């Protein structure tokens, strides 16, 4: 469920990102993950380069989950989202 269940999906960002760019959870009117991120990037242009690479694909070590499920389309983020979905942008966990 979205944060207050008003029908719009909510986009949240990992706390690891907040060190550089404070981004509060945002409710957005969107049909896909790509659209959701585009709305957030419009108000915070610098954030785009933290999440996407130069070609607009998801960065290699960044993951996006929709209701806890990894998105399938990392290149174009065309995965669809429904009302009240939770979209979460998270850094990939790597060994070492």
């Amino acid at each position, binding site marked *: 469920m979205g944060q207050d269940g008003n029908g719009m999906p909510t986009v949240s960002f990992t706390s*690891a*990102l907040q060190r*550089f760019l404070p981004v509060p959870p945002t409710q957005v009117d969107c049909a896909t993950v790509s659209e959701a991120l585009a709305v957030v990037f419009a108000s915070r242009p*610098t954030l785009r*380069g*933290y*999440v996407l*690479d*130069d*070609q607009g694909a998801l*960065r*290699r*070590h*960044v993951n996006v989950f929709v209701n806890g499920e990894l998105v399938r389309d990392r290149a174009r983020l065309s995965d669809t989202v429904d009302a009240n979905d939770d979209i979460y942008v998270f*850094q*990939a966990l790597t060994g070492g």
Partner: protein
Amino acid sequence: VAEQVGRLRKEVNEMTDRLHVGTRKGLFEIVRDNGTWDVADARFLGEPVTAVLADGDRLYAALDLGHFGTKLWRRDGSDEWPELPAPAFPPKPEDAGDDPHPWSLGKIWQIEPGGVDGRLWIGTCRADCSAPTMVVTPGR
């Protein structure tokens, strides 16, 4: 003349008494005072600083944030560090399909003054560390 020499000597001493050191764990400003070097300031603690340029009163720092890519910051006389747009690859052309390397910035390994206001030369490599190259980017 003595006053001018004194001022010049002071400026030279200030230039040679200050080091900016980029490390895997942050950017350090090291200052010599009465013959003793000491860390005067530290920024970006815990982050890899891959290149530094001191250009007049401006200081540029390139960081490799790992998960979130390579970024560029600038301090311009004050204590503020606004982020600058990092160099970026253009959209990959249709006919570049057989290029095995990613069209995405990897690291910044050198920053040099561009010779005119508004320009920097920046040494980069691609996201797979291939194809080192120099690009020009808006700076000052």
